[in-house]
Structures are given as C-alpha cells and as structure tokens.
C-alpha cells in the first residue's frame, strides 16, 4: 500500500495547476515537433530542451517527460498517416499502421495506437511505483565495480541496437566517451583535451552538442535529400473508433506488448526501440494467421505501440534509481537533469520524494492528456504535415539558436554548435549513427570514476570485477551480448530487422 501513498505524494506534486499546465504544454509541443516527418524523439527533445531550463526542477522534468511522450505519439501519427517513421521505434508501426491506413482504417489505427499506449503507460507508471523503491535499495548495494559493469553492458547494448556496422557503432561509443572526458579531471583538477579553450574547462556543453548532432544535421539532411512527397491519408473524427473485431484482436496484443515492454525497458540498453521490435516479432510468431502481417494486422500496431510506451516508461527506472541512462534518450534526460542541478540516482527518491514521485505521476497524467487532448486534435496535427518544409526548417533552426543562446550568452556556445553540426554532417556522410555517441558522452566521466575507484579498492587487480557477484553477472551478460554480435546467425537477423525500415 506504500505504493499508493507514494503515488499520492506524486499526484499532489504533479497535480498543481501550474505543473498540469507545463505537462500539457510539454505533450502538445512534443507532439507538434514529433509529428513532423523525420523528426523522432531525440531531435524533438533536443530542440525543445532549452524551453524547460527556466522552470523549477519538477516542472521542467514534467515538461520534458511530456515532450518525450508527445514526440513518440506524434511519431506514430506520422508513421501511420504518411508512412514515414521519425525514428526506429515507430518503424514497426509504419509497417502495419500504414497498411491499415491505406485500407481506410487510419482512424482505427491511430486510436488503437493511442489507447494501447495509454494502457501501457498506466501499467508502466504502476510498475515504476512498485519496483522503483526495491530497485533503489538494490542500487544501494551497488559498488563501483558493479556500476562500471552495468555501464559497460549498457554501452554494448547500445551497439547491438545501433543501425549499420557494429564496428562503427563501437567507435561512436568510444568517441562519445572521449568527448565526455573533455574538461577538468575531477580527481586531479587538471584540464584535459581543452586545447587551451577556457570554454571547455567545464566540459563540452551538452546542449550545443545534441542540437548540432541531431537538430541541425537533420535539417541539412532533409535539404540535401528532400523526402519524396508521400500521400497523406486523411482521417475524420468519426472514423476514429475501431470495430469490434479490431478491438478483440488488439486487446491481447496490447497486454502482451505492455508486459514485454515493461520488462525490456528496465534492462540496460533496453527501451522503446528494442521493445517495439520484440513485440512485433512476438505477435507475428504467435499469430494464427501470420500472413496478415504486412497487410495491416491490427495486432502489429497494438502490440508494438503498447510495448514502446511501456518501455519508454520503465526505462526511467535505471535512470532514476541507479543514475545510469540505459539508452540515448535517457542520456538526454539525464543531461537535462544535470543542467537542472539534479544528479539522478537513488538519492533523489529519499531527498526529493516530491520530485521523484511527482515525475512518475506526471508520466501518467501526460499519457492521459495525450489521449484526451491529442486524439481529437488529430486533424490539426495532420494539417501540420502540410506546412511546407521551406517554412518549417528556418523556424526550427531559429529555435535551436535561441535555445542555446538563452542558456548561455557565450558566443563560444554557437561555435560549439557549429562544430558539432559539421561533425554530425561528416558522420552522416560516412554512414555513422551518432545516437550511441550521446550515451558514451554522458557515461564517459561516470565510467572513468567508477573504474578508478574499483581499481583503487582492489589495488589495481582487475579480478575485482569477477569476484563481486553483481558485476560478474553483468559482465557475463555483456559477454553474451558481444557473442550475439559476433555470432553470425544473430547478426543476420539484426541486419534483417533493420532492412525492414
């Protein structure tokens, strides 16, 4: 029952008129950016990050969570109506959802996606409330070697889930780690890799990095290769209701998706992408007539959409209890928290219970708002798809620039943003995906610190990582993952999974 007491604290904190408003603004803005073709949650979060900085910590976290859910929801809308996935986790929705739309069931697909997500979000919230505290107490038994092993596992998972070449993904993670180390070494106070620039003494600023790599490079990419005009399928309010057969098929799928997503979300490296792919595969496997898949199977919308929302929810657990982001999106969340002066981790739960539980409660409120407000507004979002790109991109660019300037008036920040835009552009031309780099960037200093502490405890003996049960287990998992990458059979399925995009 303690769970409910905690949740009550949370709803009290998140339920204030002010916070409800920020939650609403967050979900609406998130949807607004997320619905734009080609913009997934990562660029959406990056672009909207600056507007949350002026707020107090709880409001800003609530707004960020709202932006995240909104962006994801907006992404599914675009997937279903225009067949253009904003990011990997809505790729699967594209496959079945757009087929449904072509058959005139766009409204039903949208409604099922939204309701499935809401249901999954509700379960996910209860999941966090129930498992957050026990996991936080487990987290207290975590020692430096365990943290190090956990981060290693997370990075390896990020590599497994990255697109394209495994080797390049490894290099991206490593470059991220290195970039994360730039600045003053916490242990000795010496500056590292600052090239004599005082602007780098406190490390590379997070905002210009993500905005350059994800926001602005995205714009340049779209300008170079204008996305082909695709037919947008219109939908009306009255088409929004799924018929009985569709409901009957989608409810069990949504249940399975929620369960699968909730569990996969907690795992290091887990999250929305993994969950939606896994759920799609599961639905296809257990379906009585798998031939339906690829031609608008409603289970293929309900399952993955529920799974990715549940996972989006539960992937906050490692961040909030262990202070370790499990995927690039959580890395951005963590970056935002640090800018707010909050060091995520188990301590937040005890020192600022209103913050922790308020955020958990706001996740549910955000999900509710998405259904209640956004679903009827589908028409407006669809109209937004018809705003020409020639007007959209300068506005987005301005938003990025003002955002950076409003957090720091240093001209150096703009220089950094330009540098990372160029860097991101080069990476794009060379077929390297930058998402794993952000995870490395956030984890770099943490990994170094925990490695250093571990080796101080063991007096330089690396066997400490194998002797502690927690770290040993995590390392075994890491090795298994590495085997999966190297093992040819799995590699093939990984490539096939990404081929479907």
């Amino acid at each position, binding site marked *: 029952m303690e769970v409910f007491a905690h949740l009550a604290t949370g709803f009290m904190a998140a339920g204030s008129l002010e916070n409800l408003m920020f939650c609403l603004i967050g979900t609406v803005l998130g949807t607004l950016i997320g619905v734009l073709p080609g913009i997934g949650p990562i660029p959406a979060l990056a672009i909207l990050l600056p*507007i949350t900085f002026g707020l107090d910590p709880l409001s800003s976290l609530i707004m960020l969570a709202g932006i995240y859910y909104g962006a994801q929801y907006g992404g599914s809308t675009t997937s279903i109506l225009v067949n253009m996935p904003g990011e990997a986790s809505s790729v699967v929705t594209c496959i079945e959802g757009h087929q449904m739309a072509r058959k005139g069931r766009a409204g039903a697909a949208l409604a099922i996606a939204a309701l499935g997500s809401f249901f999954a979000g509700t379960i996910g919230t209860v999941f966090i409330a129930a498992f957050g505290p026990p996991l936080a107490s487990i987290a207290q038994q975590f020692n430096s070697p365990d943290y190090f092993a956990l981060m290693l596992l997370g990075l390896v998972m990020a590599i497994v889930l990255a*697109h394209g070449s495994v*080797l390049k993904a490894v290099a991206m993670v490593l470059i991220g780690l290195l970039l994360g180390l730039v600045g003053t070494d916490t242990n000795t106070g010496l500056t590292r890799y600052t090239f004599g620039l005082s602007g780098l003494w406190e490390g590379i600023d997070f905002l210009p990095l993500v905005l350059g790599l994800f926001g602005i490079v995205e*714009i340049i990419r779209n300008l170079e290769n204008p996305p082909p005009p695709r037919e947008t399928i219109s939908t009306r309010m009255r088409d929004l209701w799924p018929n009985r057969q569709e409901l009957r098929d989608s409810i069990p799928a949504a249940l399975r998706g929620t369960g699968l997503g909730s569990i996969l979300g907690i795992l290091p490296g887990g999250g929305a992408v993994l969950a939606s792919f896994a759920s799609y595969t599961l639905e296809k496997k257990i379906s009585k007539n798998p031939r339906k898949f690829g031609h608008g199977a409603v289970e293929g919308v309900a399952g993955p959409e529920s799974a990715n929302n549940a996972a989006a929810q539960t992937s906050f657990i490692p961040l909030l209890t262990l202070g370790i982001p499990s995927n690039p999106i959580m890395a951005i969340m963590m970056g935002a928290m640090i800018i707010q002066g909050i060091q995520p981790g188990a301590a937040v739960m005890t020192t600022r219970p209103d913050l922790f539980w308020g955020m958990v409660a706001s996740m549910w409120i955000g999900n509710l708002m998405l259904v209640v407000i956004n679903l009827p507004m589908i028409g407006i979002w669809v109209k937004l798809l018809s705003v020409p790109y020639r*007007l959209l991109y300068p*506005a987005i*660019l301005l*938003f990025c620039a003002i955002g950076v300037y409003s957090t720091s008036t240093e001209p150096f920040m703009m220089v950094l943003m330009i540098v990372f835009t160029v860097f991101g552009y080069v990476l794009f031309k060379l077929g390297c995906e930058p998402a794993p780099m952000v995870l490395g960037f956030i984890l770099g200093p943490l990994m170094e610190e925990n490695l250093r502490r571990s080796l101080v405890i063991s007096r330089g003996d690396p066997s400490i990582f194998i002797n502690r049960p927690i770290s040993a287990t995590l390392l075994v998992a890491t090795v298994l993952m590495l085997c999966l990458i190297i093992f040819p059979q799995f590699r093939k399925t990984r490539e096939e999974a990404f081929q479907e995009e």
Partner: protein
Amino acid sequence: MTVWPAPKRSQTGSHSQVFREETMVIKSPQDFGAGILFILFGAIGLYVGSDLTFGSARNMGPGYFPMIICGLIALIGLIVTAKSLAIEGPAIERIRFRPIIFILLAIAAFGMLIAEIGAVISSILLIMFAAYARRDVNLVETVIFAVTTAAFVVIIFVYGLGQPMPVWWGR
C-alpha cells in the same frame, strides 16, 4: 536511418576500365572515410593526451582512461580502414555545399550579432540566411515569414519564459 544501395559500377568500355583500376583499392569509400576519421581521432587524442600522467591501474592518472579509449578508437579505425579495402560497401554521397554553408552562416550570424543588435533583428537575419539554403527563394514570403517568426519566438522566449536576452540593439 537510410539504407544506402551499393554503388553500381559499369564494367564496359575503356573509360570505365580506368575507373575500375582506381576504385579497386578502396572498395567501400564510406567505411574508408570513417576508418580514417577514427584513426585521426585516436591519433590526435593520443598525441594531445600524451602530456597527461598515465599512472597505473592501482592509481589511475588523468591520462589512463582517455589513452586506453584513444588507443581503441585508433585500433578500430585501422580495422575499419582495412576492411574497406577488402569488402564492397556504399559510396560517399555527393556533398552539397549550399545547404550546409547557408545553415552554418545563419547560426554564425545570429551568434555573433545577437549581443550587438538584439534578438529581433538577428532572428530575422538567421531566417533569411537559412531560407537561402534552398534554391528558388520567394523573397517576399521569406521576409514576411522571418518577421512574424522572429516576433513570435522573441515573445515566447523573452516575455513568456523570461530568458534574459537583448530584444533590440544598444543594451
């Protein structure tokens, strides 16, 4: 997120014969470029970091972790480069200079000028520059759009969110 098709090479005609000779060496230009980039990254990291104390496992110096990482980056760079000579892969897409140059100019102009001329005019400038990242710009539409957007954004950030920034010049 895009899957690039493998480049097709014609094998007929004397002209393309020469072309083939040249491209025999690098079979995957994209990977070759990435490999070189990684090697550069690793090498610069190793060079710049060589001043830092390495220390020992027992007592890690500030150079310990970065040097290991740079070494690994360079190593992967070597492997990726070597593979690019042996295994066929995608070509590097043609670089179009117009978008990237105008986008960067727009940011640079904004960043340099906002402290001097204020948020409104620098925002308008940013949008004007950005608009020219495309061809066929409709000047009237762009100007109207720039002015309204600048006003809108300044209202949100300065008056709505209370961000401290000069609205006009002379402050």
